[in-house]
């Protein structure tokens, strides 16, 4: 592996801890307000580590026969949900990993899970349908069949769920069981992110473009020219910057002023192979990216979307997922070999980042 640090590291990543899970790690997240870090591997192993030390707290294997597909940690961090090829969803307790409730969704893969921001609802996508349960596993709502397999789901506000599939994004009021809005576009939407205020809807499309809509004005735009399909999207917490990637490059669109239409996006070229995970910090304009080449880079962005790397590390193999600790003082990356890396991330406070150039 060539040295993937072409710039001088500024000491932002500090040694934390490493650990291993049984197989290709595909999902990870922080629970118990950062005190615990949970990792899921592709064959269905789930592992909980102490957030500070990496000491294993509990582990379980074969949670979903056929394999794990998704994991989502409740915003309060006390429970989490997993889903798999077995068509099941499990809601579990973070402290011991015990299953609180198993939901039998059906025969299809259950590929997407999202807790609503207030944690009252869990949205579940399987094949062409989307289901909403409450936190104790009671079914609250089921969608009709979508026109294709649902490719992404996300909550736009506490009662409104957005779904993406081939040709369309749909907003459902799941409490009053009605469709609030449909945004149509002929293309296979492979990813979806909403700005934190829920106004901007961004979707990566199979035809190597990012399509976005502003719900308030109904305006939409298509950003083309990506070398690959933009599977990875992330908004910063202010909703001003949208980082996107379908290749080794990260393209950042700035929604400040009249942008991004007609503006030049910021470009970050720090990786040698395509991006495999992308996440803004919980606060501030720091974006972390993990690549198939195993490199992990954190970049500090300016308002126009351009920016500089502030730290980099090598995770050893294709980065399956990355996750900022809730206080942004640590960054975790899990890889295709099942290795977990957690780095301490210092200097990350709102105050500091303002003066940071």
């Amino acid at each position, binding site marked *: *592996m060539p040295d993937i640090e072409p710039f001088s590291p500024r000491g932002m990543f500090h040694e934390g801890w490493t650990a291993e899970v049984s197989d*290709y790690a*595909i999902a990870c997240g922080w629970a118990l307000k950062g005190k615990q870090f949970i990792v899921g591997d*592709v*064959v269905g192993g789930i592992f909980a580590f102490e957030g500070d030390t990496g000491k294993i707290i509990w582990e379980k294997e074969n949670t979903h026969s056929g*394999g794990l*597909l998704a994991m989502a940690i409740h915003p309060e961090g006390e429970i989490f949900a997993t889903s798999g*090829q077995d068509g099941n969803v499990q809601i579990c307790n973070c402290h011991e990993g015990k299953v609180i409730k198993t939901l039998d969704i059906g*025969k299809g*893969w259950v*590929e997407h899970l999202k807790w609503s921001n207030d944690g009252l609802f869990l949205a579940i996508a399987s*094949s062409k349908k989307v289901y909403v349960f409450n936190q104790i596993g009671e079914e609250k709502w089921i969608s009709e069949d979508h026109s*294709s*397999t649902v*490719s992404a789901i996300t909550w736009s506000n506490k009662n409104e769920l957005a779904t993406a599939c*081939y040709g369309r994004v749909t907003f459902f009021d799941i409490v009053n069981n009605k469709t609030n809005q449909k945004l149509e*576009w*002929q*293309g*296979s939407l492979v990813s979806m992110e909403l700005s934190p205020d829920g106004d901007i809807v961004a979707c990566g*499309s*199979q*035809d190597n473009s990012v399509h976005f809509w502003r719900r308030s004005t109904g305006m939409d735009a*298509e950003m083309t020219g990506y*070398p*690959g*399909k933009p*599977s990875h999207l992330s908004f910063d917490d202010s909703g001003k910057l949208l980082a996107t990637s*379908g*290749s080794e490059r990260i393209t950042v669109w700035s929604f400040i002023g009249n942008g991004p239409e007609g503006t030049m996006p910021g470009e970050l070229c720090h990786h040698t192979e*395509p991006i495999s995970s992308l996440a803004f910090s919980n606060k501030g304009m720091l974006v972390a990216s993990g690549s198939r*080449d*195993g490199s992990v880079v954190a970049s500090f962005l300016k308002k126009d979307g351009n920016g500089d790397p502030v730290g980099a590390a090598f995770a050893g*193999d294709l980065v*399956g997922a990355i996750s900022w600790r809730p206080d942004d003082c640590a960054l975790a990356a899990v890889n*295709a070999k099942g290795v977990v890396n957690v780095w301490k991330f210092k200097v990350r406070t709102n105050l500091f980042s303002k003066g940071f150039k």
Partner: protein
Amino acid sequence: MSIKEKVPVTILTGFLGSGKTTLLNRILSEEHGKRIAVIENEYGEVGIDQGLVINADEEVFEMSNGCICCTVRGDLIRVLGNLMKRRDKFDYVLVETTGLADPGPVAQTFFMDEEISSEFTLDGIVTLVDAAHIDQQLGRSDESSEQVAFADVLVLNKTDLVSDDALDTLESRLRDMNRMTRIIRAENAKVPIETVLNLSAFDLDQILKRRPTFLEPEYPFEWTGVYDLDAGKYELMIEEGPDPEMSLVALSNQGESEEELKDGAESSVRLYAEKANSLDPGNTIPYGEHINLKLEEQGTKSFILNIEKPTKIGLFTQHTAEEFNMKVIKSDENKEISFNTERFWQAEHEHDDEVGSIAIERFGDVDPEKLNTWMGRLLSEKGVDIFRTKGFISYSGNPRRIVFQGVHMLFTAQPDKEWGNEPRRNQLVFIGRNLNEKEMQEGFDKCLI
């Protein structure tokens, strides 16, 4: 990081009832040392026995630009995207499509989606046809002819239900549609496993080894007989046959070596291009002319051949001598003179099917820029109708031959092995619908240096 080998993927297509699931089960149950993951679009009554089987509904995703060549299979992207994270569990993938699947988007998925193409390689498309029903299916549905057109291997299944003659006719029809495919006859989908897996179907040397003549030109005649005749009067006796007329060219001084036969064939092709003069029985056959023997009468018909001095006569006939029990008789002795040499030619067929193959074979080098311009234009104009392209090209100045392969508008050109002492030449095959052979050949010729 280590460079991973891509996982080969075989696509099984064919109409419902053609035996896909039987073949699939046969492959899975055989000892071949491969761990096979199966993606199944068709939920048949026959269950799949074992292995890593994933059911997925076929999802064909067109892009906003409306280009059919960019159309991909969303279900395959999704399922293969998951499988690539489980690389240690399998080393081969089989996809069983629905009977009505269009193979285009399936194949395109392996070209269009970077994530998929970085991990998987399309090894080959295997199409099963039900020998008893394919004739009707071809007439009725586009999917059926496209599945034939896309096939690297055609398994002509259920041959026990069809006569040998019918199988021959069927095979020749399928061959017309897809000249690159390998046709295997089978009962109950019983085929050797190595004929459907690990084909490296885009390996042209393999294809040429199997079928070196698929680029042989077609002739307007099927048969040539060379007769060594003394001076005198002869009769060409023709019995009843499959056609009420037959075109013929008679050449004097016809040699018997392969080279001389080919020269004679060349001259005859030119003569065949001229309008034929009709000749009723009892008349004398002129030399070096395209004539059309009228054979409507019942019984044996006879035409006259006059030989002034001893010579070898070559008869280039539209049909084989056998079909009409054609004989040459010396008139005064009433004695049959048999031919010294006969030669069969790859005959032109009536191309009934819209789907067919076009082959271009030329010696020499091409200008890479001209070729790219021509191919680019051809594929952008006709890409919808061109299902597959395969072949290799000799670029001037490049010591390696360039291998071309494509699906609809997508094509790749990659340097392959060195030419060495081999004569530099170009072989291209296009399989598609309503392709204009002459226009395409002329277009290619303009790229030659």
